[in-house]
């Protein structure tokens, strides 16, 4: 059970990777990337956790805290993630405008013509 979190992280990562590689739809691919990203968040947060510890906000009653550093990294990563996701979605919108489709194979066909 010691590694259960890491196993789940791997399962989620692979699900995300599978979506990114196997699905043709660009929006779906982005959702896959989102899953992959969240898997990495979960990895960091799991590493930060100390069993029996508490949230890293100082109180009189606690001495054992979880590690605040990964929290910082992931906190900013989430907001950066939504900004970059917006950029990717903007590109999807423009691709749809240019090719009339957001399916990978159709776009490839049409760009060959």
């Amino acid at each position, binding site marked *: 059970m010691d590694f259960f979190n890491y196993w789940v992280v791997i399962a989620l990562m692979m699900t995300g990777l599978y979506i990114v590689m196997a699905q043709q739809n660009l929006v779906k691919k982005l959702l896959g990337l989102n899953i992959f990203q969240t898997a990495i968040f979960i990895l960091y947060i799991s590493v930060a956790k100390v069993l029996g510890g*508490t*949230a890293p906000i100082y*109180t009189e009653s606690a001495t054992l805290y979880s590690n605040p550093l990964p929290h910082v990294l992931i906190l900013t990563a989430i907001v950066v993630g939504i900004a970059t996701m917006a950029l990717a979605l903007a590109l999807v919108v423009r691709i749809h405008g240019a090719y*009339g*489709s957001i399916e990978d194979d159709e776009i490839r066909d049409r760009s060959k013509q």
Partner: protein
Amino acid sequence: MTVLLFVAATMLLVMLIAIVRALLGPTIYDRILAVNLFGTKTVLLIAVLGFLFGRPEFLDIALIYALINFISVIAVLRYFEYGSSTDGTRENS
């Protein structure tokens, strides 16, 4: 303590049900209903977790969900209102 744990377990069970409903659909309204239900359950679960682990001052997270959870409902109404429940494809037009 035990009671709180029991409540948390119930919440998780209902969350599972909501996932199933979001997966099955069949209409977009069912899915958005499931997400909304899930959101309320998350509010309650986070509140209960705070008490379970003895740091109930972190209710802000539940508070923010309670405040903005229904935005996704509004977004669905805004972008998928009327008629798009059956067919949303605007491709090939």
